[in-house]
Each structure stands twice: as C-alpha cells, then as structure tokens.
C-alpha cells in the first residue's frame, strides 16, 4: 500500500507536469516514477546455475570430490605398498602360494608358447610368399601380360559404362 501510494504520488506529479507542458518537471517526475518500479529478479539459484554453466567442469567441481579422488588414490597406493612389503610374510601363512622359482617357470613357459605361435605364423607367411613368387614368374610371359592388360581395359570400360547408366536418370530428371 505504501509503495502504491508513493507510485501514485510520482505518477500524479508526472502526469500533471505533462499536462502543463512542463518538460523538465515531467522528465524528473518520470525518472522518479520509473526508478520506483520494482526490478524484476531471476529465480532462486540463478547465480549458481550461471557459474556452473560458465566454468569448465574441473573448476566447477566441488572441493570434496577432489579430496575423495586423492584419498582413494592414496589408499590404493598404500595397499600396493603393503602387499609388496609384506609378501615374504604372506608365504608363511597356511595358504599354498607359488614359490618364486615356480612363477619364473610359468612365465618362461608362457613366453615359449607365444614363440611357438609366432613360428607357425612365420611358416604360413613363407608359404604365401612362395605362392606369390610362382604367380609372378607365370605372369612374366608375354601372353599373360597381354591378358592382364586387356582385362584391366575391359574392367575400366565396364565400370565407366555402369557409372554412366547409373547417373543417366539423375541427369535427365534435372
């Protein structure tokens, strides 16, 4: 009510000055009236939403998240250190753990298996190479080379014709 009363007074002063042709008075009263109008405000949380939208995710992430990540990493490293440091003690536990020698033997066996697979692969590759060599020798005859050239030319003509046929409809419709 008080705000309305104030606005009413301002508006009266302005409209009276306008009616009287008092430009200065009307301008001053109008300024007071518009200044008295309430400013529109955004919904609650606007500033937070803007900051989240404006800043990169790494900067806008809350501090506790970064601490959580650091804590998790530290815990993981500590566990690894613990396991490594206490490994000799673990061998005294009533659990059947492999010895170091057995571990080395297993690793060596695995590497040997992989090497065997490589060897088989190399044999296959060598066979393919010999087949290719034989084909190359056969193609060195003039008849074979002429046949190859003729096939290439025919294939080029065939593809070109096919392309023209396929694009014919598109060209004529336009």
């Amino acid at each position, binding site marked *: 009510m008080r*705000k*309305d009363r104030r*606005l*009413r007074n301002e*508006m*009266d002063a*302005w*409209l*009276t000055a*306008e*009616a009287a042709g008092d430009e200065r008075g*009307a*301008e001053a009263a*109008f*300024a007071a*009236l*518009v*200044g008295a*109008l*309430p*400013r*529109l*405000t*955004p*919904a609650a949380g*606007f*500033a*937070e*939403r*803007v*900051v989240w*939208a*404006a*800043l990169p995710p790494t*900067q*806008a992430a809350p501090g506790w998240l970064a601490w959580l990540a650091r804590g998790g990493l530290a815990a993981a490293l500590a566990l690894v250190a613990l396991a490594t440091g206490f490994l000799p003690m673990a061998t005294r536990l009533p659990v059947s753990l492999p010895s170091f020698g057995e571990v080395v033997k297993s690793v060596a066996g695995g590497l040997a298996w992989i090497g065997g697979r490589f060897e088989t692969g190399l044999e296959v590759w060598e066979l393919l190479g010999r087949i290719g060599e034989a084909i190359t020798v056969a193609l060195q005859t003039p008849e074979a080379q002429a046949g190859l050239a003729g096939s290439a030319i025919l294939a080029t003509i065939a593809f070109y014709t096919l392309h023209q046929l396929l694009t014919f409809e598109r060209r004529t419709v336009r």
Partner: protein
Amino acid sequence: MGTKTDEQLVAEALSGSQSAYTRLVERFERPVYNLVARMVRDRGLAEDLAQEAFVKAFTRLDTFRSGQGKFSNWLFKIAHNTAIDHLRKSRLDTVPLDKTEPDEPDYHAVLADAEAATPLDRTVAGDLGRALAAAVDRLRPEYREAIVLRHQEGLAYDEIAEVTGMPLGTVKTYIHRARKELAAILEEAGWAPTG
C-alpha cells in the same frame, strides 16, 4: 577492507577464482535479468538469455579492458546483444519472407497483441505498480530498454548509446518518446492525476 570493485573481481576471476566469478554474477544478476526481461517480456526466456549473456561475458572476460569503460556497461552490452539477437530471430521465424521489413529496429511484428496480457505482468484492478509495468510492456523494446537503463540502472545518455550501439540523439529521442507514449497509454486506460 571494503567491497571489491568490479575490476578487482574481474582480475581475480581471470586468475581462476571461482568465488570472484560468483560474486560478479550475484552483483549483476538482477540488473541484467531485469533489462533482458523488460526487453523480451517473458520471465523464463529472460533467465535463459541472461544466463547466456553471463556465459558469453565470462568466456571472453579476458577481452574486457578496464580503461575502456565500466564493467557493468560492458556486461549490459552483451546482454543487449543477446536479447536483440533473440528478438531478431523470433521476427525471422514469425514474419513471412515476402513481407520482410527494412533492416530497422522495428519489433512490432514480433510482439504479441499489445492489448493481451503478457506473461510478464498482468493488470490487476487497483494495483498501480502492475498497471504501470503492464503499460511499460506495451512500449517498443528499444524504448523499454532505454528507460530501464536510464532510470533504473542510472546510466548516462552516452553510456546507453555505447551499450545499445545507437547514436546519442536517438537515445534521447527514445526516452522522450517512451515518456509520451506511456502518458498516452495511461490516459487511455483511465489513469489521471488525482487532485
């Protein structure tokens, strides 16, 4: 240990201070939102546009030079451009191509029927504040913008000219016309000086 100036906050924000960003937004959220909302006459849309304006401002915060003017005017300019871009786009979406207007700031084709209640304010009998706000809503967007910047944000005429990109004479003309049109609207609605 008083309140930090805008330029100080900008410098801190550029150094990576999130709290400085937040303080800048909190300091200007109301003026920017008010300006945009008065221009587009839709609260929900105004929030989106105001947010867009702030994001643009912070993205190019390093281009602000304190020696070239106030930070507030720089921010208002971005808000003005954001709102104007939306109004122009709305105009392109709604006006048939064969009736393209000359490239002038005439937004009558975009605005809803002036007699209809806007989403922003509705006239309630006996509520003078709302009646005035509704009357302001009936003005052209550039008139609304000019009187808001002048009489609510306290910008000088030359500052308004800088923000809006309009000549100084045009700014003064718009404010004068806004006043006259508003008086006519209120008179038409039956508001007259008491006593």
